[in-house]
Structures are given as C-alpha cells and as structure tokens.
C-alpha cells in the first residue's frame, strides 16, 4: 500500500516538498514506514533519527499499525513558543 508522510520545517526544506509517499507491505507499522522513508529519501536520515512520528495527528510509537488511510507525519524537534 502507499503511505503519504507529511513533512515540516527542515525536513520539508531538505526535500523541497511537503510530503513523501512510500510503498509498504501490509500489515505495516510506523517503523516500516520509517524504513521506507529512509530508503526513499536518504537526505532525511539525520533528521529522522531525531524526530518523532504522528499518526492521525497524534504522537505514536513505531510499533503502531498503519493503514493506507492514515495521516502520517514526521515531527522533527519542535521549537514553537
């Protein structure tokens, strides 16, 4: 299945696009998505190492199952406020 991962801040600028879509085999977890993104966009490796993941607009662990309808996002270290 295809999973679209939203990108923000430095991750978005590193890739020059606000999302990256990867192919993962079902059943998949956020960890599988991570591996696929690292393969598709090696430039993001360092950022990913320091980032969290969100599923359905909430922080989620890499064990969390992912379906094709899920809203997935890479959350680099935040700096609001």
């Amino acid at each position: 299945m295809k999973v679209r991962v939203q990108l923000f801040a430095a991750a978005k600028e590193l890739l020059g696009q606000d999302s990256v879509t990867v192919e993962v085999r079902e059943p998949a977890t956020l960890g599988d998505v991570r591996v696929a993104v690292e393969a598709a966009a090696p430039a993001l490796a360092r950022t990913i190492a320091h980032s969290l993941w969100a599923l359905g607009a909430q922080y989620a662990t890499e064990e969390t199952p992912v379906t094709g309808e899920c809203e997935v996002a890479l959350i680099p270290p935040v700096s609001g406020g």
Partner: protein
Amino acid sequence: MIQLTEHTIETERLLERVRNRAAGAVVLFLGTTREVTAGRQTVSLHYEAYREMAEKHLAELEADARRRWALLECEIIHRLGEVPPAEASVAIAVSSPHRAEAFAAGQWLIDSLKRDVPIWKREQWADGNREWVHPGLAEAPTPSCNVDEAVGEITSER
C-alpha cells in the same frame, strides 16, 4: 480557547476575555521575538505548524490545565508566519481565584507547548542566513547556506 493565527496577537482583547468576576488573579505570558540570540542579530522569526495536530494538542493542554488547576479562563494563542522583533509569537492568559494557580498553570502551559506542540520556528538572521530551529539536532554537517530573502527553499540545521 486555543487559536493559531497569522495576525498580530491582540493582547487587550485577550485580557478582556480572561477577566472574570470570580478571578483574583490573571497571568499573561507573551513569548516575543528576541533581536539578538548568542550574539547574532535576528531580523524576524517565521513560524510553521502542523496545524491539525497543533490545534488538537493545544486543546488538550488547555483541558489538562483546567483539570490540574482551578482556572476560570484559559487562552492559548500561537502566531504563525513572520513575527518581527518585540512582537509576540505566543500568548497564554489564565485567570483563577488565587494567584498561585494562575502562575503555575501559565508556566506549565508554556513549558508543555514548547516541549510538545508541533510548531517550528525558522530564524531569519541579519547576515542573510536562515535556519530552522530543531533543538537536539546536532550541528549541521554542511555549513548554512546564504540565501536571498526571496528564495528560502534551502535551509540549514542548528
């Protein structure tokens, strides 16, 4: 109430909304753009959010704060886009019967917001450099790129 906005934060209206006849205390916190950080001059900060998640998270912070302290009103506003020096990027206003709760809730809210809410700032330095601020990401292995104000696709990391 929580709000993400592209506009100047109107503090007077915010204070009007948290004023309450049952309140003995109001605490307002403003996070403002600092012109100089570690000796470098900032022209402005640019804020970006994962809007849907940030709004959800801010609403949860408000609900948590109301559970933890006896608050009468609680407002969190974060500005997005460009924020020039001395202007507020974030405003937190709470009212409570007694002052201890208002101070504690205000501090907890800004600490939690800065730690968890998916909002990012990009420094626009006076020397022309721009960089996204990602605390904990080690120094970029490549030097920061000097870009025109008009460009802005390229960035460096802290």
